[in-house]
């Protein structure tokens, strides 16, 4: 049976995961306003402080693509085949809406935190 601190850590990790899940999609969509391939996208996110592993990023990219928010293309660069992603026109619209929603949530949360 996990002890108290283990349980607390587990609860924190689960909540952190939930918090990150939505943010990651938003961050990926925002980064893909510029065309990138998987590794450079991961690097760009990591440079901005949002580490994401391969097992999370590639399924997320597939999901966003199947939802029509991204378009991708295999292309040769530096003698290697790479899959480049960028935001689709639908993705651009959705991203604008999501960013608006994000701003609203952020404002509300800041207000709540100030009141607390």
């Amino acid at each position: 049976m996990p002890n108290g601190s283990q349980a607390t850590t587990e609860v924190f990790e689960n909540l952190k995961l939930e918090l990150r899940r939505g943010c990651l999609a938003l961050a990926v969509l925002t980064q893909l306003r510029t065309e990138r391939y998987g590794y450079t996208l991961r690097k760009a996110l990591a440079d901005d402080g949002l580490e994401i592993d391969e097992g999370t990023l590639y399924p997320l990219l597939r999901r966003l693509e199947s939802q029509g928010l991204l378009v991708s293309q295999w292309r040769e660069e530096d003698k290697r085949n790479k899959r480049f992603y960028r935001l689709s026109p639908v993705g651009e619209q959705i991203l604008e809406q999501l960013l608006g929603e994000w701003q609203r949530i952020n404002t509300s949360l800041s207000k709540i935190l100030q009141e607390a």
Partner: protein
Amino acid sequence: MTTSSSRNPLELVDRYLQAVRFWLPKTRRQEDLLAELGEDLRSQIEDKETELGHALGKDEISEILKRCGAPMVVASRLGPRRHLIGPTLYPIYEFVLKMVLLWILVPVFIFIVGPATLASTNGDWGNTVLVTLGNLWSGAFVAAGVVTLVFAILERTHAIADIACKWDPSSLPPLEKRERKTSMFQTICELGFNVFGLVWLLLLPQHPFLILGPAAAVLKFGPIWHIFYVPTVLLAAAVILRSAIILGRPRWTSFPLWSQLVQALLTLILVHYMIEAAGHTVQGNWHPFVMVADSVRSSEQYARFSKIVAIVNVAGLITLVCTWIGVCIGGAVHTWELLKYIRKQRSVSERPASLQAQ
């Protein structure tokens, strides 16, 4: 020993990808994902090489692959989310599985299979327990397998999702009157005992030792037994039906009360006729419930057995009279409860709707 990967460290990446491929579902998407993962790993290696200024060795590549994760774990993250029974169906699956295993299978084995095995092994308790437990174990596996299979099919066919989309709030069950609802545990126990009772009754003609014990070798059933056996079995079956209805229709709040009264009345009529029939003598002998078996009629111990028979018959008659009195008292209590319930229902229906909602 020199391995090929020590000569060409990059071969480790291909071996790694091969291991990931093994755990991924075999689809077109598999190759696409692997190509992308391979490209990511090679880019990481390339970056590291630029940073260090030399080609990476086996250990350094191993470090990158280790950080990426074990092939099986990576494949589980890359592949589609797979589950046999999804989160929507899982609570229903768990409920049905518990019902089947705990509330159906176990009672059936305790009250039907166990006694039947006991009868077939001529009262060998040890053997009966072992055989029943063995059958219960394999039965539980089969039942759990069948339930899981059915739910897996439901999950694949999205049958529940379709039903869930079509639900109508007006089809929700009416509010339950909690104070009258018979507890499920009590009903299941009743059902179990009633089934056990019926099975016991059905086994009696072939296995008289179940009631007479070792005396079955020298005693046999009397005339009352033959006259009232079928009505008793029918009454026992009706009692089982009643319990099953209570279990299946918990919202029929008045049913347990009035059906209990009907059951008491039927029992009373049956016991009344049994007592009346028990008062008769056959050819000057009074042995309504049990008689001395034909095989020992000419034995020297006949007189002793006759005394036993007389005692058993008197005890049987006393038991019947006590049962009659008990059922009379029970019937009066059930009548009182039913009247109380009817009065309460009337007062609720006469109350304004606004007060009923409180």
